[in-house]
């Protein structure tokens, strides 16, 4: 029973992290048409940042790890720091990649950035302990509760859910507002949006920074749960898993991509654990990447809008909140009703 509960709570935390990730990338790719193939880098930035501002001095534990900062900030500052640093690093990247380049070239730049970032972190060992990565990252809010206990597992599920709730408020404020509409317009026709007064570059830079800050938060939440982070955790193909989740769930739809997060990174990955071993060891894992790629292609080909497609925004004609007819000269309410 305990083992099942541990497994369940672990899955729920991973689901929360994946949901944060798909919301963030959906804002960029699904809502705004920004092809951020370096998404996983910013999740990693958040994870490393949260790690090095939680771990304390590198000299502890025999000094076997080498990393920058070595602070010991109280919770939830490491999570906030993860988001802020990921967002801040997005600014110079966005200034270079989003200003002049067409979206297909943006995608190439991001992919290259993702590969370079992994190489830098692996080779500059003083940053985040090189290929071995960070470990023994303390879990937050453990006062009086053993971090290995089931109660703590559920506490962390609660923390993750609360963070998801707060992030959703901001995500929803973007997607349901005229800001989200302007972003969708730039996605559909960049030149026409520009000709109607939209500063497409600034809009894209904003969503790039905002989405990557959420990615950073998701990395911070994950690293404080699992206690370790290394270059193997954020290979460039991980971005494709998040992207596939969005395509499967429903590009541009916050609820749809949540479903995608449940189906692709979580359910699909977990289901393969129960497959019987066939062929050489590791074959199933290797096939997993291929199948995720094929899943994305199949959906793009036959079901491009995903399982829960982007919503059609309709506007109410009547004063829906009060039920009263608007008085003469008074504007009618115009909430999107779906």
């Amino acid at each position, binding site marked *: 029973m305990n083992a099942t509960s541990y497994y369940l709570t672990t899955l729920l935390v991973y689901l929360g992290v994946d949901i944060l990730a798909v919301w963030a990338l959906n804002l960029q790719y699904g809502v705004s048409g920004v092809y951020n193939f370096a998404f996983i880098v910013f999740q990693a930035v958040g994870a490393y940042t949260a790690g090095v501002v939680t771990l304390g001095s590198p000299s502890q534990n025999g000094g076997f790890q080498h990393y920058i900062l070595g602070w010991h900030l109280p919770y939830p500052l490491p999570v906030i720091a993860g988001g802020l640093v990921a967002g801040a690093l997005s600014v110079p990247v966005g200034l270079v990649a989003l200003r002049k380049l067409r979206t297909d070239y943006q995608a190439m730049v991001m992919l290259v950035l993702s590969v370079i970032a992994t190489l830098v972190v692996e080779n500059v060992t003083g940053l985040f302990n090189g290929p071995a990565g960070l470990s023994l990252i303390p879990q937050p809010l453990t006062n009086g509760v053993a971090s290995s206990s089931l109660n703590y597992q559920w506490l962390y599920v609660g923390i993750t859910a609360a963070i998801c709730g707060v992030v959703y*408020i*901001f995500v929803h*404020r*973007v997607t*349901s*507002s*005229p*800001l989200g*509409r*302007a972003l*969708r*317009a730039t*996605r*559909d*026709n960049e*030149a*026409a*949006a*520009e*000709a*109607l*007064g*939209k*500063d*497409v570059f600034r809009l894209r830079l*904003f969503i790039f920074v905002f989405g990557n800050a959420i990615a950073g938060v998701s990395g911070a939440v994950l690293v404080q749960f699992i206690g370790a982070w290394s270059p193997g955790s954020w290979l460039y193909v991980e971005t494709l898993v998040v992207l596939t989740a969005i395509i499967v769930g429903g590009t*541009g739809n916050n609820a749809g991509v949540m479903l995608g997060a449940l189906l692709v990174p979580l359910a699909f990955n977990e289901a393969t654990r129960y497959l019987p071993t066939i062929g050489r060891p590791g074959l199933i894992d290797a096939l997993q990447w291929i199948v995720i790629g094929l899943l994305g292609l199949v959906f793009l080909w036959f079901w491009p809008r995903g399982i829960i497609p*982007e919503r*059609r*925004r*309709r*506007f109410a004609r009547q004063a829906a909140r009060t039920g009263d007819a608007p008085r003469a000269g008074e*504007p*009618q*309410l*115009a909430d999107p009703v779906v």
Partner: protein
Amino acid sequence: MTTTLREDAPSAGAGGASALLHVQDLRRDFGGVWAVDGASFAVARGAITSLIGPNGAGKSTVVGIVGGAIRPSSGQVIFDDEDITSLPPHACARRGLVRTYQLSSEFAKLTVLENLLVAAPDQRGESLATLVFGKRHWREQEERAVIRARTLLERFGMGEKEDEYAGNLSGGQKRLVEIMRGLMAEPKLLLLDEPMAGVNPTLAREIEGYLAQLAGEGLTMLLVEHELEVVERLSQAVVVMALGRVIATGTMAELRSRPEVLNAYLAG
């Protein structure tokens, strides 16, 4: 060489105090070929000025430069007494110079109503304050914009289509959406690049009627159009371009008798 056929033409020509737009000696080359080679004209306030010319005359390049999408090699664009040469398109639009495109440019996955709402100027809901304050920051302004958009939709006979995805409309309906979208942006000058191209004759006549109405209400328009009968019916002044230059300006009736115009365009 520019030939001004009528000194008192309401637009075009050398412009004058009433001109909203002055294009002065614009030049633009692409790989050594001068697409625009010293074009000058003006657009008077409150009337339709048409820009005509054979294919390759440089009309689209001029439109691109005026709208901010193309940088000129030299020359100036003065709009409402401000030099807007080389300003980006969004900055031109925010000053009231709004353009439509030769090819359909709807926001396909937005509804018709949303297409119009995107164009509403100075939207509070597009600022970052939306993240902090949420809907209360922009709700009232949005309500007013929706009412304005619906008024436009009714006027253009598209009220029933407000919830339809713009990408599902017919070619002619997309043109109407673009014009309405342009109007929603509260333009001082509406730059229409072949608004009737590829539209069936009935709807083209309908669009022509709307443009005449808008001109009657005092909206300034610069119209790029190939149908000379339409140009004649709508325009108070016409600018003729050929080989990157303005070769004549005046009314359509006057231009029909000019040999250089006939040679460059009308006979061809």
